[in-house]
């Protein structure tokens, strides 16, 4: 029964186009499928030799795999873009190498499962020249790294603000000044991380529009709650002018929230202390659209920059408030999301007199 099962697994593994190999802690090859043999040029006899497992990788990647084998824990996954040489013809082929740590919890025997995908095959399948696999990996990398960055940033922020709060003893004015400088830049870093995550998420979900009933009033209340404290800290007046009742919408609520959130966040960010922000939400005269206006009293946008303001990674020369500087992603995503919801976004601005963003979104997405 068990024998039959193992045979079945082997048959399945031999139908896979990825090269699969299992390596033990002594770097001995203990199993590989036919695709692995074809990629590396190994023969059945080589398998008996055992110590051939890592020889086909470049030296630096051999070291990387050894390090993973030594330090990795059960369930961990790693991905390397590397090359693998073919013993028979001497050719070196680019591959994506996925490495999984497999540990038997009872016996503590650690093994590495290596899965090799030939990059040439992937490239041939990709219409844009960028291997699909690589593009996906890049996006996943941005997303994962950004999340990983948040924890150390949280610790640094808490440690520094602990000093600033005089919990551990009073600081003099000069020391407080530098603690404030550190905090300001930690918040700036957080902002960048958040934008990177937005970008990763946008790229992942840019095509899907999830249509659902949207209660605009609830959405606005959510934003009011979110920004009341920030506005108060900055002595900013945020005037929420919302028509009552607001029309029932059928659209993608999460995308709409992102659009509103970004415009309001920007307006607060760019407004000077003691300034004012107006958020006006109403339905259009024919009732087919919802019109949202977000107006700030910041420094405005120079005429030469208005056209570029929605470009990805474009950073306006607008001087935002203390500690806040964008990375040129927020407005670009707002623009693309508005288009996805079949709406429009426009900006009007006179340098020195603030900016007004107008968004028009169809009440019912069709």
């Amino acid at each position, binding site marked *: 029964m068990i024998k039959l099962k193992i045979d079945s697994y082997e048959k399945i593994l031999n139908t896979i186009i990825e090269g699969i190999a299992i390596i033990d802690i002594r770097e001995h090859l203990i199993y590989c499928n036919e695709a692995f043999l074809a990629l590396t040029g190994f023969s059945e006899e080589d398998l008996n030799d055992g110590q051939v497992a890592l020889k086909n990788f470049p030296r630096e990647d051999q070291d990387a795999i050894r390090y993973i084998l030594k330090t990795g824990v059960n369930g961990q996954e790693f991905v390397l873009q590397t090359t693998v040489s073919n013993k028979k013809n001497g050719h070196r082929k680019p591959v994506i190498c996925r490495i999984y740590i497999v540990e038997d919890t009872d016996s503590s025997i650690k093994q590495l499962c290596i899965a090799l995908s030939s990059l040439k095959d992937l490239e041939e399948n990709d219409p844009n020249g960028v291997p699909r696999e690589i593009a996906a990996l890049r996006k996943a990398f941005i997303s994962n790294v950004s999340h990983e960055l948040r924890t150390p940033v*949280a*610790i640094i922020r808490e440690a520094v603000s*602990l000093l600033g*709060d005089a919990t551990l003893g009073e600081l003099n004015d000069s020391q407080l000044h530098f603690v404030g400088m550190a905090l300001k830049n930690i918040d700036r870093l*957080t902002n960048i991380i*958040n934008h990177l995550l937005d970008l990763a*998420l946008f790229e992942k979900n840019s095509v899907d529009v999830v249509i659902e009933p949207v209660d605009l009033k609830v959405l606005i209340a959510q934003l009011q709650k979110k920004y009341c404290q920030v506005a108060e800290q900055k002595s900013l007046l945020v005037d929420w002018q919302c028509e009552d009742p607001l029309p029932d919408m059928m659209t993608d609520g999460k995308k709409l929230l992102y659009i509103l959130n970004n415009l309001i966040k920007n307006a607060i960010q760019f407004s000077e202390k003691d300034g004012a922000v107006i958020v006006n939400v109403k339905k259009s005269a024919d009732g087919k659209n919802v019109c949202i206006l977000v107006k700030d009293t910041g420094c405005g946008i120079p005429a030469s920059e208005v056209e570029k303001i929605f470009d990805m990674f474009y950073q306006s020369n607008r001087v935002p408030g203390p500690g806040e500087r964008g990375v040129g992603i927020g407005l670009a995503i707002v623009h693309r999301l508005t288009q996805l919801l079949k709406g429009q976004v426009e900006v009007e601005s006179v340098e020195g007199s603030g900016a007004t963003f107008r968004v028009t979104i169809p009440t019912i997405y069709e």
Partner: protein
Amino acid sequence: MELSDEKKKVLIIEDETELLTILQIRLSNAQFEVFAASNGTAGLTLAQSVQPDIILLDIMMPGVDGFTILREIKGADATCDIPVIVVTARDRIEDSCLLEGAEGFLTKPFDYKELEGTINRLLVS
């Protein structure tokens, strides 16, 4: 924090020990009685034995993750009424955490004042 004469008990379940230490200092200073666990299993045991007034819970932890702990806390009679604030580096999981029964949600890096405000709000309600 002057909700009553008796100190309120806060349990922090967080695998990042440095953050755990800072939060311990902060919350002790704010007159809370603080209990700390650096992994999910220890946190769950403490939740059952200490019966804290509120729990701060990280989600991404090695071993038993925060979601499992949240489900265990909210699924047991002895602990289901203890308010839980999820404090995590993962965003966009707020809905899932609230569905699992968490009463509060904060994304790292958080503002300590916001955290203390959320704790006090939940303790009053």
